């Protein structure tokens, strides 16, 4: 790390030492010379030699720390129950629905497949033992990606600050952070996301430093690699959008400067623009779509996710009851049908024997929207004014037409779809919808006018393709699904209401999905096959809706974004009781608090540097270099931190502690850069240079030791705790529960 120089103890430094001879005010020459070697494209030979060795060293440490005790505990931990299960779905090719894009789970599935996992483990709940099932491959894959974060961060900081100590400090922080270790050791999306994210940042930084030789091979390489990684990050979780923003802002800034460079012709500028559009927009988009193409090709069997998607989409899945089926095309009286709400992820119109509880409108039978297929979703279409037996072959088949007034009878309970001027259970301004009447005999509140959107009166109604509106004749309201989940009494199904606000939203539109009428000829449904673009759009709508649907309930303690940087509360990965093998996701508090303090420190330094520069104070070349690192390098990282942290304050969905880890990576890099700069700056006040070098080295060493020692204290958090809880004085973790909110 130190520059080897002959006669290091000599008071006067030879001008040739480290190739630093440069003209400057003589009085600064000695006193302000900085020990670590200021950033210069040409690094001192010794440091240059140390770099690959240091890289190899931190990489090795990183892999060792992530792979240590990887198979422990041999049971399902925390969200492995989701992502492991989804990996299995890929191996089994069953269709499922998740709020995240598919890449992460596909990679997990692939890793499992390659390592000999057969997809048979059910991943039912945390704590289930793996027994003979091979799970190491999937964990190992995640751990591998998680280990790569350290060298990536090392290289990024090295590139930005040109300072080996800063890069090493960052690497040590990430290696010895218990949180990063824990998060990398299990079958989760986070290591995959962070891998792509850091890789994108690294390639962006590398590409920036190739700016002096544009269109060279390495420039193209890093630029396209940035694009690839962006697609990867976006493909794992939508949080990847933040890094896309970061790269986007960087690119705009870059292009703006190129535009201002009058030595470049407009043609050259156009080339720059095109190259970036190609690598950073077209390439990632193509990859992203390819991911989905693979996703939909692999998952071709019907599975638990069907109900979230539209009828047309379901007809593509092998095993779905809509697959390759043929149904009667036009709706007739006497047909048995299911009705699906057209909202994305809308449910089927459903009813069951249970009544609305007292105090919730009239005490009649519940009508809800239900996402799964069920016999209780079946309804019979009847004429409003006659009750003749329509299956009687003597009666001619009569089709339902646009504008007809009909009655819908629930097949299982023989009650009519009914509405009246009682307020709906959750949406107080809507009317309640119930099942009413006995054996199909009700009252005039059971009459509904059926209308097809954009069709004239008298036209027939088509299965699946017609978008239908049901207007309640007596009150004039429209049957709709509010999308709100009913409480326990409604089996947490979705509320169905009759809305008096006559707006054509998907909430109040329905289509007929199943259609059973033995007296009508069947047609095949292949005509409905949606295009890839439609599938893509639909799956995104469903994912976005699913994401925003993850709302916290009242009276539930949830994690708040401000908890995260202060390491307020962790997540229990495994084990609750004293006898369990317990793993607790919590950042190494020393590191996290150091990061937190550093953010404040950085802002202070950056503002004072910016003001100093703006005031036009003459700086020495060393200080100029330091200010460049602080403002430019640190600024980029700071921007990354802000982009990955602040948006969470505006999110309405349920948040968890582990959402902070991408931001934490940036925060750690900032810590490396800031402390290195600060130490250099402080050491600069000492003369002669030997003392200043000692101050600098001492400070650096103290920081590293602090990090390593704190890791020694807290390592059981990641590598497993057995025995009494930390509140017990006999526990190895006794005295380490520094905050009451930590639960270990």
């Amino acid at each position, binding site marked *: 790390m130190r520059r080897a120089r002959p006669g290091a103890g000599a008071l006067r430094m030879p001008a040739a030492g480290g190739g630093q001879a440069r003209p400057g005010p003589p009085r600064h020459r000695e006193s302000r010379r900085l020990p670590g070697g200021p950033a210069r494209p040409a690094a001192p030979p010794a440091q240059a030699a140390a770099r690959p060795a240091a890289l190899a060293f931190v990489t090795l440490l990183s892999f060792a720390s992530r792979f240590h005790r990887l198979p422990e505990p041999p049971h399902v931990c925390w969200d492995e129950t989701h992502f492991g299960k989804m990996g299995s779905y890929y191996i089994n090719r069953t269709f499922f629905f998740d709020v995240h894009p598919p890449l992460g789970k596909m990679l997990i599935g692939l890793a499992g497949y390659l390592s000999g996992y057969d997809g048979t483990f059910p991943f039912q709940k945390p704590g289930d033992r793996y027994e003979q099932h091979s799970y190491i491959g999937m964990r190992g894959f995640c751990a591998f990606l998680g280990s790569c974060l350290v060298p990536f961060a090392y290289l990024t900081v090295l590139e930005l600050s040109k300072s080996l100590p800063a890069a090493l400090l960052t690497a040590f922080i990430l290696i010895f952070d218990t949180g990063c270790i824990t998060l990398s050791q299990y079958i989760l999306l986070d290591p995959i996301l962070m891998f792509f994210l850091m890789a994108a940042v690294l390639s962006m930084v590398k590409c920036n430093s190739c700016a002096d030789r544009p269109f060279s091979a390495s420039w193209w390489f890093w630029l396209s690699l940035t694009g690839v990684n962006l697609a990867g990050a976006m493909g794992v979780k939508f949080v990847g959008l933040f890094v896309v923003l970061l790269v986007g802002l960087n690119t705009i800034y870059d292009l*703006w400067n190129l*535009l*201002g460079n*009058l030595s470049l012709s*407009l043609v050259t500028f156009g080339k720059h623009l095109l190259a970036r559009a190609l690598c950073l927009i077209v390439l990632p988009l193509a990859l992203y779509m390819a991911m989905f193409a693979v996703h939909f090709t692999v998952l071709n069997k019907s599975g638990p996710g069907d109900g979230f998607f539209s009828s047309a989409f379901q007809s593509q899945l092998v095993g779905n009851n809509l697959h390759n089926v043929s149904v009667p095309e036009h709706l007739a009286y006497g047909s048995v049908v299911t009705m699906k709400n057209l909202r994305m992820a809308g449910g089927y119109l459903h009813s069951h024997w249970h009544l609305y*509880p*007292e*105090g919730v409108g009239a005490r009649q039978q519940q009508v809800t929207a239900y996402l799964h297929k069920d016999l209780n979703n079946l309804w019979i279409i009847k004429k409003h004014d006659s009750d003749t037996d329509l299956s009687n072959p003597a009666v001619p088949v009569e089709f339902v037409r646009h504008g007809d007034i009909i009655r819908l009878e629930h097949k299982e309970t023989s009650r009519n779809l009914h509405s009246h001027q009682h307020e709906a259970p959750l*949406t*107080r*301004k*809507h009317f309640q919808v119930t099942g009413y009447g006995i054996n199909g005999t009700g009252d005039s509140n059971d009459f509904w006018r059926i209308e097809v959107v954009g069709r004239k009166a008298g036209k027939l109604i088509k299965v699946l393709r017609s978008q239908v509106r049901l207007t309640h004749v007596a009150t004039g309201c429209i049957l709709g699904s509010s999308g709100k989940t009913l*409480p*326990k009494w409604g089996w947490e199904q979705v509320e169905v209401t009759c*809305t008096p*606000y006559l707006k054509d939203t998907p909430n109040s539109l329905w289509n007929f999905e199943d259609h059973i009428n033995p007296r009508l000829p069947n047609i095949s449904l292949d005509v409905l096959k949606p295009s890839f673009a439609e599938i893509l759009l639909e799956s995104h709508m469903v994912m976005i809706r699913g994401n925003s649907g993850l709302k916290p*309930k*009242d*009276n*539930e*303690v949830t994690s708040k974004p401000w908890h995260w940087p202060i390491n*307020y*509360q962790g997540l229990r990965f495994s084990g*609750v009781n004293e006898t369990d093998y317990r793993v607790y996701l919590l950042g190494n508090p020393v590191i996290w608090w150091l990061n937190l303090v550093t953010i404040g420190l950085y802002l202070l330094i950056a503002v004072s540097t910016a*003001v100093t520069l*703006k*005031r*036009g104070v003459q700086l020495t070349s060393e200080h100029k270099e330091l200010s460049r690192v602080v403002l430019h390098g640190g600024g980029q990282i700071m921007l990354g931190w802000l982009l990955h942290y602040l948006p969470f304050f*505006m999110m*309405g969905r349920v948040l968890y502690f582990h959402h902070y880890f991408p931001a934490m990576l940036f925060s750690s890099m900032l810590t490396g850069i800031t402390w290195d700069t600060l130490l250099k700056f402080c050491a600069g006040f000492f003369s002669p240079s030997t003392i200043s070098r000692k101050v600098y080295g001492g400070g650096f060493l103290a920081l590293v030791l602090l990090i390593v020692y704190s890791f020694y204290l807290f390592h059981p958090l990641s590598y497993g705790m057995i025995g009494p809880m930390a509140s017990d004085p006999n526990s190895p973790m006794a005295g380490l529960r520094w905050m009451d*909110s930590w*639960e270990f």
Partner: protein
Amino acid sequence: MTCGRAGGRVWALSSPQGRGSWSRSLCLPRGTAGSVVPLPPSPPFGETFDRMLGIVKKPFVVAVEINISLVAVTVMGLMSRLWGLSYPRAVVFDEVYYGQFVSLYMKRIFFVDDSGPPFGHMLLALGGYLGGFDGNFLWNRIGAEYSMNVPVWSLRLLPALAGALCVPLAYQILIELHFSHCAALGAALLILLENSLVTQSRFMLLESILIFFILLAVLSYLKFYNLQRHSSFSGSWWFWLLLTGVACSCAVGVKYMGLFTYMLLLAVTGLHFWHMIGDQNFSNVSLVYHFLARGLALILIPVTMYLSFFYVHLTLLYRSGPHDQIMTSAFQASLEGGLARITQGQPLEVAYGSQITLRNVLGKPVQCWLHSHTNTYPIRYENGRGSSHQQQVTCYPFKDVNNWWIVKDPGMQQLVVSNPPRPVRHGHIVQLVHGITTRYLNTHDVAAPISPHSQEVSCYIDYNISMPAQNLWRVEIVNRESDTDLWKTILSEVRFVHVNTSAVLKLSGASLPEWGYRQLEVVGEKLSKGYHQSMVWNVEEHRYGKSQGQKDREVELHSPTQMDISKNLSFMAKFTELQWKILTLKNEETEHKYSSSPLDWITMDTNIAYWLHPTSGAQIHLLGNVVTWASADVAALIYTSLSLWYLVRRQRKIYDIPEDAWQLWVSAGGICLGGWAVNYLPFFLMEKTLFLYHYLPALTFQILLIPIVLQHLGNHLCRPPLLKSMFSALVIAWFSSIYLVYCTFSPVTYGEPSLSVPELKDLRWKDSWNILIRKQ
């Protein structure tokens, strides 16, 4: 639009470096209303003496310059907003909402309104106070006739005045941005003839007041900035700087939307200060002074003002009222009547033997008290799980004798307070005895009825099966200052931690089924993840128990409490609580017939019916001037594209317009387009029900942009004289069309005269507008 000045003073967003000398004489806005012409600088003494003699000889003259156009637009503004103000004499739209608060102010009854801070409500109430309103009116439906005691005119006066004054403010802002008088006059007329602003100003609503303060803040900042160059720290410099801060805080105090403009002005101030830092003409010390002055005026004063609004609010409203139960017990006890009547004179410190009621601090879904009754949990629940069959413990939303509990020392048998009382402290272990049934509060490893992941809480009945009593609870005072703190009535927030299982007594939020009388479920939470209000309880009613026998105790429990100690909350504690409630109180998401999405606003695809005459077709709508809205959109579009064009060309060092004009263009756009953006774009992120009137502040800024763009086009893009005159003619034609549209829609703006059905149908220019047509 073609009378722009050649060498106006430059007000710029960018650095003023390198333009040291400019002439002051050119840059005074010519004669604002009532400005006094300054006397010439004093000459040497001899001449002075001569002149003094001259003054004696000549008559004493004060020359006053009056800007007739400014006065004219002000008068027109007042006329348009104040004409027939008390018509219709009925509740119009949101008057029904704000009116109830005015009534509560008149009666001094405390309320919480989550729609915003209290300053706006107070201004409306001021109108009621001046008009001698006694608050007796039932604000129950839109369209209800006002009774004789309601001073309609004075209630609507303040918003109308504020709306009228926006007209001259617009004029002044354009002048301060260094645009011509023609442009300024244009801006004023556009604001004047904007139907939606007229409608919104004429009723007891807050938007016009908000817009007034926003514009005032912008204007005073511009005045301050223009004074900056030659007279820093002068009297008028201070005046305008302070006025900026005051106007900002008033805007925020009226509605939280004002925050957006406040932030914009702070950002502009920051940017200007950043340029000052780079300016070597300022010494370091003077920079610090400048910084401190801005911090004082733009941060300190707004914060103080904001606090003072709440101070006045809380001072005015001292009686208990309909929203009491949202607040904590301590807050309720500070109001006159209500809880204070009960808690007046309770003993402060909870002691062993105290009889208490325990209120859950969360207050959601309703406020409730820890409760038990003789009924037991059913042996089997509907879903087949079993229970302990012990006595139910619930949380009950009404005052009841079954809410009383007695704090007992586990080591002693007595249920009365000893003399002297032994107070309970943080960390002490107690038993809680239900007063009426004398059973002990208990929890054990049995799943709770509705939340099976938590433990059941019961009052222990010994069935002689192997289920021992586990009734020891540790008292943890959450808001204590030290470990030896006493448990205080009302003030202390307490957690009860079960000694055996370390479960925490918690309100789960679910309600029990039929067998539990739909009361709220109380559980023991084993995995308590940090602090949550549902686990915290406070003592509300409290007295020292005196009767040892059960019969006596029942009589005692039924009797009202007495004794005295009074409690007072500090203002800051009250403020913090009220502010927190205002920000976190979530009304149920409501759908409204006239709600709209932000995208509908730019094209005005929506309207709001404010009022309909009970018999005739006369009606009032919030409906803008179509031509103005469209022009404003076009202006914003032109501004953005033209700026981008200039920017890109400048980056390539091609300068299309003179530097002065560019600075003018940037600064004007920064304020007007920036004002539009900050007041509009955030709505896309909001989840509450939105209405067209939320767009009005943004619209005001957008309208100011029209004359700016027009003058720029006229000065820089229409160079040939022929083109110039054609341009002027077009502008005049366009203005007359705006006037025509204003006149066409004025019947639905003012509610007079009543229109016939075909006339109403003719007004429905867009299918999405909802003009009310009475069925014949």
